[in-house]
């Protein structure tokens, strides 16, 4: 069924097609084709003739490789939960507008625009053994020796938080401030306390936004690459699946195996997205059932 709004031409005529074709062609040739070609290549290992699952079997048979899946989840899941909860807390508290909104949002956009690499270089300096952060703590007498915050798991988490928190916060703030305040006001008028308003009224309304935030942050953290190299231990504790794929492609030049790892990475990201969608459905159902009982 085609929905048409009144007064709008709905036909896809020659001019419309001509307008769409260039960009569509670009996406098909440069995005869809490489993707499909990558899947095809992953099934054609270099050492075996014809189609074979050898690459996938090698990956899941080699502890050095399949461990990266666990390592990546171990970074992505805690990071997603922390980023989204903190951002939600702040955005919810500031849904009525913030003091100095423009300045605050401008400063928050900084890490997004500066990019991962500059942030990593800054974190190495600032949180390093001789950086200001450790100097301050040592100077205040809170510590006897500097904390090791870079070139380990904590460094990667710090960098991911710095990158993704502003993004997530601004997205949730945009979403939550779009909810009609009169709904909340009616609930307050009818005697609901702040906690009830949050849990019974606002949470179901915010659920789609929260689910989107969870999905985006999770997917971004799962592909973590430069910060895991610069701020972590790329040969050990933070060797994520993206590093494994990169090493196969550009250090071993085994494009077939590398494509297989990229496919595995994509599948796990999709699985994460599906779980988030399912959780969201349960959350909304639970919330509405609770309301229904009254």
């Amino acid at each position: 069924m085609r929905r048409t709004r009144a007064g709008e031409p709905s036909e896809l005529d020659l001019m419309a097609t001509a307008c769409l074709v260039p960009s569509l062609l670009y996406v098909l040739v440069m995005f869809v084709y490489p993707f499909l070609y990558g899947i095809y290549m992953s099934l054609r290992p270099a050492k075996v003739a014809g189609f074979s699952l050898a690459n996938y079997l090698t990956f899941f048979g080699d502890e050095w490789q399949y461990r990266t899946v666990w390592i990546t989840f171990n970074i992505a899941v805690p990071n997603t939960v922390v980023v989204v909860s903190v951002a939600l807390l702040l955005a919810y508290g500031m849904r009525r507008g913030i003091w100095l909104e423009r300045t605050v949002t401008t400063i928050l956009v900084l890490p997004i625009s500066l990019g991962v690499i500059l942030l990593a270089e800054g974190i190495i300096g600032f949180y390093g053994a001789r950086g200001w952060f450790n100097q301050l703590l040592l100077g205040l007498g809170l510590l006897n020796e500097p904390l090791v915050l870079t070139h380990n798991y904590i460094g990667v988490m710090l960098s991911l938080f710095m990158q993704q928190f502003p993004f997530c916060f601004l997205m949730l703030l945009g979403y939550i401030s779009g909810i009609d305040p009169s709904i909340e006001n009616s609930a307050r008028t009818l005697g609901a306390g702040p906690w009830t308003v949050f849990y019974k009224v606002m949470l179901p309304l915010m659920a789609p936004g929260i689910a989107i935030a969870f999905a985006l942050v999770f997917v971004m953290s799962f592909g973590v690459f430069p910060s895991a190299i610069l701020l972590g231990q790329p040969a050990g504790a933070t060797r994520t699946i993206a590093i494994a794929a990169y090493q196969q492609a550009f250090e071993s030049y085994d494009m077939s195996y590398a494509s297989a790892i990229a496919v595995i990475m994509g599948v796990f990201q999709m699985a994460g997205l599906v779980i988030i969608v399912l959780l969201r459905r349960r959350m909304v159902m639970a919330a509405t059932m609770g309301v229904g009982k009254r």
Partner: protein
Amino acid sequence: MRGRLWGLALYLFVLGFILNLLGIVSHVMVSAFAKRWFGTPLPTAFTTEWFTYAWSNFDLGRILTVTLSVAGAVVVLALILGFPAAYILARRNFRGKPLLLLLYFLPLLIPQMTYGIPLATTLYRYAIGGTVAGVILANLVPMVPLAVFILMPFFEQISMNLEWGAAMMGANRFQVFRRILLPLTVPGLLTAGVLILVNTVSNFELTFLVSGAGSQTLVVALFYNVFAGGVRPVYSVDAMAVMYMTTVMLLLLLALRFVRPTQMVFRLDQPQR
């Protein structure tokens, strides 16, 4: 009272985050101007020689030229490809439109490392990988959809009556485009152009996977120098980082003249205030 404290805690967190961010950025800046800096709050002596050192040792003149020409080409091509598609997607309804929108959304949703490896493989197979052209082509993959999604709401704001009126007065399609659509979408084109520019300059993954020795952008060159930590004096790497930061900041200042910051990460469908 409890509400007040709660609000105060929120502001303190934001303040902490901002201070931490400023600390990170200014640590890089101070270090770039330091002669030597070991465990003191501030370096004992300052110098600007790391900038000249970085400029000549990292071949920054060429890297900067590559960066700006890649970014410029990506902006122009993304707008040319995205403009007509955004117009049709904003104006027409047709079967398969949601599917098409999903297809355009995927390159923005899927992390670049996931599709970057097959994309780089394909580009290297056709001998485009490692060249400046390859870097431009790879960066266009997420930027064409970005241009489409930024321009769409701008077209939606232009009344159909203007186009119909012009057509009634005898304007042909080209004249409608030249005299009505183009002038009215200038804000949209500026917004999209500036955001694509900033995004391309600071984009790491795709450029990293596709670029070769002569086609590195500033951020990729910076990565290699941070990665090889210890090979070059840390102050010179920081000097390079400061030059990168200045480039992005200038572009960003330009951007903030036209764009509200929240639009960078959220959809443009809220009414303009």
